[in-house]
């Protein structure tokens, strides 16, 4: 029998946020410049498994990712059973900063995808000085609503399967089947109402149009990386947002979709490395 122990370690951290006790799960691998990764709506840190297992990244970067409360192995706060989960810009931003304080993460590079890419814009607007650089994957200031996530919590709809089915077409058809279906499995394991609760931020609350022009890339450089197969945050959406931010850099990733780090980690790392090298060399 052969076995391979991965370099990824997982732990829990407890901290108070908005008057409630949280138990948050996080994973990390590597050493060097901290790289804080933010998962997509309705998923969890496993989306970054490829990054954490890629020595090209972990040789110089300490990759850290945490499951938002209600997601993955993080607990929902006590009393969750009587409330509806709805993510807002303020809560999401505060959670990221609180997690950084809780584990002592100082001036990381932050890289978020989809809702994570959206909140990166708010981090750049309001907290840029706390970050060495900001990387928005599938990042744009707004996404028009073209489906109603309320159906994902209908009692006669299997929300886990329907959530996976909703996002399955966002990936490049040629991304490796094993990685595509691993990505969908994470969606099939999401808690009831969590994906749609995240989409409240994505579709309603987290609209940063009109504000992103105030992002100062002299404080923290901003990189947009967007997969060309993504129709939720399309290359045009990203380019429209980036055009209003002086100094922002855009890279459209060929043969990748909405979940670049998860649907095809190998190809994604190839796109990411030049960005990481530029950030590292900037000091």
């Amino acid at each position, binding site marked *: 029998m052969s076995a391979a122990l991965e370099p990824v370690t997982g732990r829990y951290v407890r901290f108070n946020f908005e008057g409630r006790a949280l138990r948050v799960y996080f994973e990390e691998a590597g050493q060097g410049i901290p790289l804080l990764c933010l998962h997509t709506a309705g998923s969890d840190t496993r989306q970054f498994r490829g990054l954490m297992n890629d020595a090209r990244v972990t040789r110089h970067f300490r990759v850290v990712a945490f499951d938002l409360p209600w997601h993955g192995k993080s607990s929902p706060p006590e009393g969750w059973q009587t409330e509806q989960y709805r993510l807002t810009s303020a809560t999401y931003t505060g959670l990221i900063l609180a997690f950084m304080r809780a584990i002592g993460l100082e001036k990381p590079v932050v890289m978020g995808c989809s809702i994570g890419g959206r909140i990166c814009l708010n981090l750049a607007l309001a907290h840029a000085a706390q970050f060495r650089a900001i990387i928005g994957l599938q990042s744009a200031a707004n996404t028009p609503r073209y489906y109603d996530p309320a159906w994902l919590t*209908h009692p006669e*709809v299997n929300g886990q399967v329907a959530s996976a089915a909703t996002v*399955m077409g966002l990936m490049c058809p040629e991304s490796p089947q094993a990685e595509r279906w691993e990505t969908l499995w994470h969606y099939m394991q999401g808690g009831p109402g969590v994906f749609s609760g995240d989409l409240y931020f994505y579709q309603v609350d987290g609209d940063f149009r009109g504000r992103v022009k105030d992002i100062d890339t002299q404080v923290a450089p901003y990189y947009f990386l967007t997969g060309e197969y*993504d129709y939720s945050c399309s290359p045009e959406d990203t380019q429209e947002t980036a055009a209003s931010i002086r100094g922002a850099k855009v890279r459209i990733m060929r043969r990748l979709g909405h979940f670049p780090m998860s649907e095809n980690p190998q190809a994604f790392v190839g796109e990411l490395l030049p960005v990481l090298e530029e950030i590292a060399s900037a000091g």
Partner: protein
Amino acid sequence: MDWQGFAERVNADRLIARQGAGASFELLLKWGDEEHLLCVRDGRLEELRHGPFVMPRCDFALSGGADAWARFARAQPAPRDQDIFAFFRRGEIVLAGDTRKFYAQLMCLKLILSKLRAAGAAS
């Protein structure tokens, strides 16, 4: 669209058999001026009928221009032509009928629609 062999491709697919197990619905697919009725029972395409129809029974309908469906059905769809939701966003394909049933059957539906591609590229 050449529908020859479509039902066979759907019903021979192990992925659809597994992920579509239990799915049953009747889809009216409006491809430009053409109408096609797909009757799915337990993840199998039991009946495929071609119109025109007069007031056909169906659970939901997907309507789009012939050009939109042709782009969706290409063996290697162009970026952002690989999924019906992309066409929803652009208003090129429209859903009508029982939305609850559409969402309940969405996994099976998308996998079946991917078989419109001769090479069977995933949705």
